[in-house]
């Protein structure tokens, strides 16, 4: 793997990309029942249909939910096929009919469904597979708890074992996953409001299942699973593009095992690590040396067991092989974006080859963390090791060389009497070779010299002198010395070159990792911190990043943490900042400073100064790396600065927007009623005598109406001001919500026109403690909105009911509804929909009413939400839920 070689796309990735002719699968993924997956799927389907798509509903479970059912209207729904089972006819999805119909897009609800016995496939996801193979696009829904690999996790979280499961591969083959996400409390609210259908028998179990903690955990699983699929797709894209990993994405674990007793322990460690990382994907790799001796039968069996265990625990398995084992492991890790590597080390029967793997991984694993599991540890919590500085002290190699030669001399002494002295030279030659391989060039040269001396001293006649008796031995000695020297020189150089190559590779990996961290940082602080850490790691010394602040420099980050610099160093830093040149230790400017400061020169601006303490290792590669880091860091800081400026401008723009919305509103909404008042009044004054009494009365009425409208508007403006300024005065009292609703309905009665309000109150309703005036105003605003947006001769339904914790008020109209895009914004200030359906009401809304309702309701501890459409494609429902015991702390679920 030479760095110069251009990356070629991974063949597997290319293969996957050419899965042509297949239908596309989209999965609507949710954390639990009731989040609205089917609902969302149907809405999306309606949109697709409206755009002219050939959409057919294969099977959809509405669970009797009205909204969901109404969405089915107008869609092509396939009849189900009855399947006889134990005397009962189960209505199942008709796969053959769907294949025959062959729509562009088929909706198949509930991916995890188990088909009735006697169906073609036992599971619905298999039906889907057949549909996809037939080239039909399929949309389906899935709750995360049904994923096979999560069974155990879900069981641990919820105490409920899922029977209907889907293998993970069935989800990962999805081309698109849409996560339907609502918060657990929202879901519980929806359940409380009866929107989530449930059989009575299931209620007890459900209550246990739908605890907030459970939902939170499930939600996290769903989010992660969706994110992970995005990761997978990203990686797929990267592989196709031939970009080398690792790419910043979710955690991915690689466990390396071999044929030895540790294999199973390593697999379990991998699983635990995966659990700790919220079920991160993990792969167990059997690393095989092509030229290694075959493992014993027992070890081979252990390895097979370990791989089986890995599959059972939800890991993937792979066999890695190659002449250069380390290279294949590293290559696999990069290609698959591995962030965590688990490897074992055996203490006693120390397999030197395995230790080499660890060492090499430490050097080359790039951005991945290495977990070394030792055999002796009982239940080893995976121990996180950062890259250590395995830098050999220089004299250690020389000492080692002497040792090796001493060993060789002893061996030669032992066999001296059996072999000719010339042959003993070979033993010494071996020691030179070993020194070269193990310790490098100079120790090898040293070993050559030492060997020559020892050979002459101990084994050439006369022994124990440096003299050489036989003239022939002179030749032997000379040749020996020359060969030893050459061999030592060569092996040492080869070894050193290999070392430096691997160092370069690790430097490149480090630059990549640093770049990724820097470019992933979102703020100046974070970028500075990352830069300081990377610098410190690269140089093995302290590093500091300073940025401009209030006309001076301040410390933005330091590794290890540091809050001040001595004045001398600070002066050097300032000089560096002002002149843009390196200062301090080792430079021509203020060389007495303890640090070397260098400017961070970005694309357009100087973004700061970094300081590094003189480091023990000042190699050329290290220097290049530091330069690369500085460039990256400068750009990252500069970008962070631009982002801050942009964010400030955005905030200002939003304030401006609000202000101009307010001005527009005042300009239009005050002036229009005033025009009517003034115009009608002057008409009566100027022409009072020449117009009929009816016309005059009508004008007077219009004056009154418009004055009321003005009053409402001014009231709204005041309410908003009070909400904004915190001047809201809440006077709580025990209130019968029905009374408030009746009063609110009365207040808007004159503006109803040809619409009517249909009340639906229960005979009994618990009292709640709240401010009746605020509630009334909130309801009036919603009613006025409903009136403005619904046509004549329709009903506005005003209902109240209670559940365990809340009193719920529901206000429904039959207007044209709110587009989904606007649904989230209707409660925003000055948000107004394009055109009220009633001309008489046009312009009367100011876009304040609903925001005030929301403000009031929330100020009283309640919640407000809007849903639309509710009848087919029409109608809006606003729900207000008021806690029965306001101000009480949230009861533990």
């Amino acid at each position, binding site marked *: 793997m030479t760095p110069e070689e251009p990356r070629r796309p991974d063949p597997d990735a290319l293969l996957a990309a050419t899965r042509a002719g297949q239908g596309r699968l989209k999965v609507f993924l949710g954390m639990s029942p009731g989040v609205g997956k089917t609902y969302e799927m149907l809405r999306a389907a309606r949109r697709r249909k409206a755009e002219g798509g050939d959409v057919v509903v294969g099977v959809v479970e509405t669970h009797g939910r009205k909204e969901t059912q109404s969405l089915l209207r107008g869609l092509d729904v396939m009849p189900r096929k009855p399947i006889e089972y134990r005397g009962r006819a189960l209505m199942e999805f008709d796969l053959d009919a769907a294949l025959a119909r062959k729509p562009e897009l088929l909706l198949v609800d509930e991916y995890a469904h188990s088909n009735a016995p006697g169906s073609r496939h036992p599971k619905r996801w298999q039906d889907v597979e057949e549909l996809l193979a037939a080239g039909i696009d399929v949309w389906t829904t899935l709750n995360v708890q049904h994923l096979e690999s999560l069974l155990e996790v879900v069981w641990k979280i919820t105490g409920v074992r899922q029977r209907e499961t889907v293998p993970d591969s069935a989800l990962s083959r999805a081309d698109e996953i849409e996560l339907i996400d609502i918060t657990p409390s929202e879901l519980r609210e929806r359940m409380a409001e009866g929107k989530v259908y449930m059989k009575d028998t299931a209620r007890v179990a459900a209550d246990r299942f739908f605890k907030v903690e459970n939902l939170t955990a499930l939600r996290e699983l769903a989010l992660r699973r969706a994110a992970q699929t995005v990761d997978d797709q990203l990686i797929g894209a990267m592989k196709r593009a031939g970009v080398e990993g690792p790419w910043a994405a979710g955690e991915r674990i690689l466990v390396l095992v071999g044929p030895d007793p540790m294999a199973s322990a390593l697999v379990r460690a991998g699983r635990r690590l995966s659990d700790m990382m919220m079920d991160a994907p993990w792969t167990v790799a059997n690393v095989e040396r092509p030229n290694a001796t075959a493992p014993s039968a027992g070890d081979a069996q252990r390895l097979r067991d370990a791989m089986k265990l890995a599959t059972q625990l939800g890991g993937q398995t792979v066999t890695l092989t190659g002449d250069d084992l380390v290279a294949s492991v590293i290559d696999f890790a990069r290609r698959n974006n591995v962030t965590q590597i688990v490897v074992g080390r055996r203490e006693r029967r120390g397999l030197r080859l395995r230790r080499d793997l660890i060492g090499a991984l430490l050097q080359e694993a790039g951005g991945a963390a290495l977990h070394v599991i030792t055999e002796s540890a009982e239940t080893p919590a995976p121990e996180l090791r950062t890259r250590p500085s395995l830098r050999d002290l220089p004299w250690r190699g020389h000492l080692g060389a002497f040792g090796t030669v001493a060993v060789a001399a002893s061996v030669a002494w032992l066999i001296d009497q059996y072999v000719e002295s010339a042959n003993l030279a070979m033993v010494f030659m071996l020691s030179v070779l070993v020194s070269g391989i193990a310790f490098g060039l100079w120790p090898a040269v040293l070993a050559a010299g030492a060997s020559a001396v020892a050979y002459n001293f101990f084994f050439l006649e006369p022994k124990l002198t440096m003299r050489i008796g036989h003239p022939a031995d002179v030749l032997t000695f000379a040749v020996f010395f020359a060969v030893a020297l050459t061999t030592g020189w060569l092996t040492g150089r080869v070894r050193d070159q290999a070392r430096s190559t691997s160092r370069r590779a690790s430097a490149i990996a480090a630059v990549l990792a640093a770049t990724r961290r820097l470019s992933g940082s979102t703020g100046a602080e974070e970028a500075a911190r990352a830069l300081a850490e990377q610098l410190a790691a690269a140089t093995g010394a302290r590093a500091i990043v300073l940025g401009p602040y209030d006309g001076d420099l301040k410390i933005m980050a330091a590794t290890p943490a540091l809050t001040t610099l001595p004045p001398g160093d600070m002066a050097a830093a300032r000089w560096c900042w002002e002149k843009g040149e390196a200062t301090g230790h080792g430079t021509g400017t203020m060389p007495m400073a303890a640090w070397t400061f260098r400017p961070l020169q970005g694309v357009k601006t100087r973004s700061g100064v970094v300081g590094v303490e003189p480091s023990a290792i000042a190699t050329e590669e290290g220097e290049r790396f530091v330069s690369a880091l500085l460039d990256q860091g400068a750009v990252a800081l500069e970008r962070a600065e631009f982002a801050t400026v942009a964010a400030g401008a955005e905030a200002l723009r939003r304030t401006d927007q609000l202000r101009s919305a307010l001005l527009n509103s005042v300009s239009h909404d005050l002036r229009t009623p005033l*025009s009517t008042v003034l*115009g009608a009044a002057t008409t009566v004054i100027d*022409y009072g005598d020449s117009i009929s009494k009816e016309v005059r009365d009508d*004008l007077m009425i219009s004056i009154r109406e418009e004055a009321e409208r003005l009053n409402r508007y001014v009231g709204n403006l005041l309410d908003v001001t009070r909400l904004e300024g915190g001047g809201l005065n809440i006077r709580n009292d025990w209130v019968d919500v029905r009374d408030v609703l009746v009063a609110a309905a009365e207040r808007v009665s004159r503006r109803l026109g040809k619409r009517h309000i249909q009340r639906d109150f229960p005979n009994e309703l618990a009292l709640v403690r709240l401010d009746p005036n605020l509630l009334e105003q909130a309801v009036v605003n919603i009613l006025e909105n409903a009136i403005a947006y619904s046509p004549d001769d329709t009903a506005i339904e005003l209902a109240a009911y209670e559940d365990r914790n809340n009193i719920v008020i529901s206000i429904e109209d039959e207007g044209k509804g709110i587009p989904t895009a606007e649904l989230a914004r209707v409660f925003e200030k000055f948000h107004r929909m394009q055109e009220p359906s009633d*001309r008489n009401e046009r*312009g009367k809304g100011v876009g304040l009413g609903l925001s005030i309702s929301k403000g009031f309701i929330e100020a009283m501890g309640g919640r407000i939400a809007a849903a639309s459409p509710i009848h087919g494609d029409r109608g809006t429902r606003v729900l207000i839920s008021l806690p029965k015991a306001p101000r009480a702390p949230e009861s533990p679920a």
Partner: protein
Amino acid sequence: MSRYPKILVIDDEPQIHRFLRAALEAAGFEPLRAETGAEGLREIARAAPAAVVLDLGLPDMDGKSVLTRAREFYQDPIIILSARDRETEKIEALDLGANDYVEKPFGVGELLARLRAALRQRSHAAKPPPPIIRASGLVIDFPRRLVTRANQPVHLSPKEYDLLAKLAQNAGKVMQHRELLLSVWGPAHVEDTQYLRVFIGQLRQKIEPDPSQPRLIVTEPGVGYRFMADEAEP
């Protein structure tokens, strides 16, 4: 066909129609009603009203584009309803061919006066301008280039006279700064509104009964000036 002049009101506010209908009928017009720009253009083409009252804030299209399109086939007066704080909008509308504007909120009397002035102007346009204009005791005798107040001759410089003549010949109508500058000082000075301020001030000193409360030459802030002649003239 009714013998009353038809006035088309284009406004999306039903409340405005409500009182304008009453006022227009009482003032001897036949009111017509349109609530959108498209509807308004159709009505103009169909009913050929004597004048149009157009609100610039319409739901379906910009009032100014209604104006532009109406002017392609309709030459009778169009009076704009506009908000006070929209000077540029007013000027644009006048440039696009509106005859006059009324600021919201407005009194019915004001609107009807503008309407009558515009209609009168329309009928004058066909005939040569009247040789003599009277306004609150001021008499302008165009053939003799003679201006008298309370039967006393008023001495005006040539530029002052030109300015007064331009305003008086368009009595009742707002004259934009540019129009006045162009006609009196020529195209090189259309931006020099300070000339206008000075000369209008001098004119007022000479012709207004009370120069501190001008009634003959009324300032239309941000737009121009308007000469108020006696209305009684047939």
